[in-house]
Every structure is written in structure tokens, then in C-alpha cells.
């Protein structure tokens, strides 16, 4: 079996030159002109020859791999490869290993992740515990009794998570990778796996506190999955999340993801924005303005660091939202500042906020 990993197409003999492929009739692709690079087309011509005879064999795996290496978005090749793997009862864990080694090359392609889902589903089908419906198009919304995951499937899940982590080290915001991680967690639905996710997110945010995907994943893990074991005390959970988010904002205040997360958790828990007023206010001033303030060390409300760029636009937006309830003239003052000075790009948006807020103000008699 030729060593496929690492050999580029230029180093392999053409399929047309190989004795083990002489029985297959290559089917040329319809073109209105002559293709300029036949070498790239040979595997695809042979692929169509295989498809026409519906061949499912070891050499089909070699062929589809060659096509996928040239063109990872060739979904027909992926599909046919999957069916071939099942038909010839190929070792699927070996397939996963092969996919691992090609992953970094292909990580921006939808198909490579979908193929992984299919392989895992084939290996662990039916799922070890009842998948809860996330990313699972056929699941119903009602929950079912969960069976205890086997040691093998637990180990496999951890290996997969480790693989995903490695890929994220290369491209920390890869959309498909994160989506796949979510799918994997829901598929195995193992409480121990879920428990590890907070620590995982924190490690990534330590690398890059502005990683929006990591913040989104945090929300997914803490609030999006229903109650995790050990997280029944939702008051404690909110306290922890607020504390964590405030600390990250203190580290890097001009971080849209952290502020969006803050808003998200307040809205999800029905908590008033005004609870955050003491925290937010220092971020709305310049460093000079703050010099006059008393330096009280308040662990609950970490202050902006000396290097922070102030005032922080997101903090001003937040404060304006707090004031909107009962001190709308203060909101308007902030929005005017944003429109004319601090966030002029979105001037029309701030003018809209002013207009809408003043609409509700009763006319003074």
C-alpha cells in the first residue's frame, strides 16, 4: 500500500500509468475546451469511471483520497469515500487518524468536518447517550433517559476533543471547528466532558481575550445546554460569570466580545443592567478624570488598568442603556458624544437612539 500521507500529486505516477488501474475506463469531463492541466484531471476522470461501475474497494479509497487532497471541497468524492468505507468495512479509527493528519490542511472546508461527524456516528452508532438535539437534525426536543457512556467512548471523546483543541491552536476562530466541538459534546453528552469546557475556554481566552468564538462557546456551555451537573445554583453561576467577565474587561476594556457576553448573561438571567453601574462608570471616564476619584480597591468592581484606552466606547454605550430607564437626558448626552466624537462611524445609529428615546418623553406642559 503506497505511503499516501505526505506525497503530493506531483510525486505519484498518474493513474493512467498504473497497471492496477488499467481495467477502469476513465470518463472525461465535459468541457467546451481543452483542459490545460490534465494531470489534475486524471484522478477525477477515474473517479467517474468508478462511480459508473459502482465499485467499492480499497483502491477507491486511494483514489478518493487523491481527489480530496487536490480539492477538499469535492463533496461527491467525500460522499463516495464514506460509502466505500462502510461497504468494505474499513477500519474507521484508521480513517479518523488519516483525517487527523490532513486536518490542518483542510480545516477551512465544510466537508472534512462533516466526514468526521459521519465517521464518529458510524463508530459509535447508536450514540452512547441520547444526543440532546443540538446539531442533530433528527432528534426531538424531548429528553430521554441517558445511558452511562462506556470507557471506550469516553476515551474516544477525549481524544476527539484533544484533536479539536490542536486544530484550534492553529486557527483559534475556525467556525467549522467550533461547530464540530459543539456537535461532539452534544453527541457524547458526557457530563465529565462538559465540565472540562470552562477551563478550556479560559485557556483560549488567556491566549486571546478577544476570541469571539471562545466567548460564544462559554455562553453555550454555561447557559445554552440547560443545567450542567453542579451548576444548579444559578445565582452562584451568575456571580461567577459576572466576576469572570468583569476581570476580562478590566484586562482589555475595548473588547466587544466581552461586553456582548456581559449583556447576554444579564438578559438571559433577567438581571438589571443598573446593577453594573459602579463597575462600568470608571470605564466611561478618561484617565485624567479618574485621577480625582478615590482609589478604593473593590474586588467586585475591578478598575481599568493604567494602559487601558479610555474612555471605553462600549462602557459608554452600556451606561447610556442604564440611564435610558430613568435618566434619559443623561443617555442622550452620551449618545450625542458617541455620534459626534467617539463613534462617528455609527452616527446614524446614535441619532436613532436619541430620536427613539425622546419619542417616549412626555411633553412638558
Amino acid at each position: 500500500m503506497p505511503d499516501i500521507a505526505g506525497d503530493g500529486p506531483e510525486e505519484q505516477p498518474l493513474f493512467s500509468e498504473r497497471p492496477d488501474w488499467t481495467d477502469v475506463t476513465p470518463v472525461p469531463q465535459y468541457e467546451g475546451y481543452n483542459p490545460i492541466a490534465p494531470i489534475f484531471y486524471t484522478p477525477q476522470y477515474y473517479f467517474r469511471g468508478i462511480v459508473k461501475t459502482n465499485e467499492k474497494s480499497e483502491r477507491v479509497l486511494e483514489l478518493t483520497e487523491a481527489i480530496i487532497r487536490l480539492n477538499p471541497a469535492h463533496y461527491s468524492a467525500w460522499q463516495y469515500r464514506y460509502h466505500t468505507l462502510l461497504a468494505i468495512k474499513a477500519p474507521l479509527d484508521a480513517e479518523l487518524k488519516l483525517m487527523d493528519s490532513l486536518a490542518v490542511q483542510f480545516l477551512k472546508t465544510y466537508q472534512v468536518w462533516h466526514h468526521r461527524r459521519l465517521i464518529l456516528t458510524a463508530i459509535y452508532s447508536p450514540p452512547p447517550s441520547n444526543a440532546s438535539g443540538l446539531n442533530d437534525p433528527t432528534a426531538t426536543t424531548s429528553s430521554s433517559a441517558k445511558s452511562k457512556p462506556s470507557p471506550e467512548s469516553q476515551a474516544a471523546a477525549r481524544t476527539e476533543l484533544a484533536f479539536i483543541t490542536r486544530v484550534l491552536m492553529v486557527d483559534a476562530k475556525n467556525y467549522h471547528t467550533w461547530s464540530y466541538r459543539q456537535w461532539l459534546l452534544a453527541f457524547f453528552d458526557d457530563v465529565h466532558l462538559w465540565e472540562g469546557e470552562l477551563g478550556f475556554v479560559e485557556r483560549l481566552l488567556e491566549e486571546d481575550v478577544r476570541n469571539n468564538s471562545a466567548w460564544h462557546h462559554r455562553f453555550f456551555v454555561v447557559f445554552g445546554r440547560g443545567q450542567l451537573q453542579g451548576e444548579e445554583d444559578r445565582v452562584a453561576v451568575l456571580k461567577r460569570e459576572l466576576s469572570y467577565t468583569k476581570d476580562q474587561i478590566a484586562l482589555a476594556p475595548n473588547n466587544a466580545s466581552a461586553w456582548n457576553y456581559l449583556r447576554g448573561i444579564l438578559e438571559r438571567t433577567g438581571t438589571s443592567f443598573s446593577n453594573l453601574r459602579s463597575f462600568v462608570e470608571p470605564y466611561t471616564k478618561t484617565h485624567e478624570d479618574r485621577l480625582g476619584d478615590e482609589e478604593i480597591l473593590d474586588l467586585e468592581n475591578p478598575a481599568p488598568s493604567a494602559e487601558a484606552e479610555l474612555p471605553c466606547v462600549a462602557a459608554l454605550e452600556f451606561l447610556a442603556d442604564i440611564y435610558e430607564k430613568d435618566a434619559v437626558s443623561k443617555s442622550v448626552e452620551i449618545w450625542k458624544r458617541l455620534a459626534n466624537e467617539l463613534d462617528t462611524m455609527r452616527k446614524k445609529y446614535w441619532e436613532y437612539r436619541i430620536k427613539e428615546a425622546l419619542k417616549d418623553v412626555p411633553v412638558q406642559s
Partner: protein
Amino acid sequence: MTSSSQLLIPLHVRYIQSLGEDDLTYHLTAHLRMNAVYWGLTALCIMDHKDALSKDETIEYVMSCWVDEAGAFGPHPDHDPHLLPTLSAIQILVIHDALDRIDVPRVTKFILSLQQPSGVFAGDQFGEIDTRFLYSAVNALSLLDQLHQLDVEKTVSYIKQCKNFDGGFGAVIGAESHAAQVWVCTAALAILDRLDVIDQDTLAWWLAERQLPNGGLNGRPQKLEDVCYSFWVLSSLSVLRKVSWIDADKLTSFILSAQDTENGGIADRPGDLPDVFHTIFGVAGLSLLGYPGLVDIDPVYCMPANLIESKGLRKGWEALPRKAS
């Protein structure tokens, strides 16, 4: 090198006409050839050069991609059928007033067969699910006048579940908000008259926040700008009637600076190589911004607006008024 403070229409028209000539990339992208033809044709329509590509050859190409066993289209002859090229094929035929070439009942059956119990659509029998496919199905059925066959409640309920804490939408339930996915969900809801699902002010603000200091738009917080978001973000804002929340002059300059002033076409950002994908979305974005000399584009269907209107499919979107010059 000519100035890039204008849209170089004749150059871009020639760029689209010459796609496929001795271009290796062209050969390697057969899996999205049908999409590429639709992108090129729509860009020509918006630049008011619809006839720059032969109508007959285009229709012949589309029909050569018909997969009779499936009742659908593949992206290229002898490729497997898929929802994306099926939508593109329908769009191309609508633009060329050749919808009569399609076996509507069979295509409708193919499209509906891809809906999953949860309401989302798969792209094909491979099973990949994504709100892009949901949008493609809704758009296609709408153009075929077969929307009445769709389980609208089920479809809308899936989109609802994709709504995230920031007001945006992702590719599947639980996935991160992303401007392209926001567009497909917003446009699908527009076609189904269910914009009530969206927290409109919150989402419009999230979309406005995509604009970076250089005037370009990104797809998610703290990612790079890319010309294609000129369409995804702008058309979503159009549907929400908040296009003015974007700084139009800065975005216009950004798109124009991404033109290839020698060979034509538009790239993802200034200095990169152009491709037909970024060309259509750059031109479409400019059209929504009221750039002079362009034809109106419908942001829900990403097709010429007057054509959609003539089919009675226009929804309540708003673009910036067309500048005189």
C-alpha cells in the same frame, strides 16, 4: 495604474467574460461552477451588461447539469445533485426568463426531500445541514411559486432556535453568530414574512458594529474585513431598513479600493487577487449603497430588483437612494 475611486465597470465586465480561459483555479472549482455562473451573471445584470454572456450558451450549460434521476441540478455536468447549484440554476433561468425549461414538480420534490425533522435543510444526501441550505430551499421554492408546499412553522422554528444571545444567527442551533448566516436567516424570514422572529434593533446594531475603522465590514467581532460582507451585512440591514447605520462613504471607498485595476474583478480586500465571488458581492454592496450607474439589487434574493418585483416577490426592504453621479 488607473484610479480606483470609481467602479471600473467595463474592466469588470471583461473580467467576468474571460473567466475560465486558461485559469487553473477555474478547473479546480468545478464543484461550484453553477454558483460561479450565477455570481457572474448577476454581477453583469447589476452593472447593466446582462448581455455580455451568451444567453443561449448559459442556458445550455445549466441544462447540461440537470441530474434526471434526482430531479435536481449539480454544479457541473456529471456532478452529484445538490441544493446550492439547484438554487443557482433556478436563479439563472429566472434571470433569462427560461423557467419553463425546469420540471417544477420534480425539483420541488427534491428540495422538500432535504428538509430534516428539526426544520433545517440538508444540502444533499451527504447530510450536511446549515441555515444556508434552509435559505436556498426557501428562495428556490419561492421562485418556483411552490412555497405553499413548505412547512413554514417547522422551518421558522429552526431559525428561531438559531438566535444567539447577541441577536445574531449561526449555521446551526448553538453556532456562533456570523454575518453570512445572519443574512440567510434574515432573508429566509423575509420571504416567509416572519421578521417578527428577529430582535431587529439589537441585530441591526450588531450588524452596524461590523464596520471597522478602515470602512470595511467583518463577519464577526474582532475578525478581518472582507468585501463579501459588504453584501451579507448590508443586505441584512436593508431588510431591517437600517442601511443608514453603516458609514456609506467609507464602505464605498473600501470596496472600490479592493478592485483589480489592471485585470478587473474585485478581491476580498485591497491588494489580494480578485475572484467572481467577491466581484458580485462588492458590486451588490455598492448597488445597495446607491452607487451611481448601477441597477437595483433585491437584497432578499440577491437578484435584479425589478425582476423580483415583477414576480410579485418584493418584500419591504430599503436601500440607499441611487446617486445621480
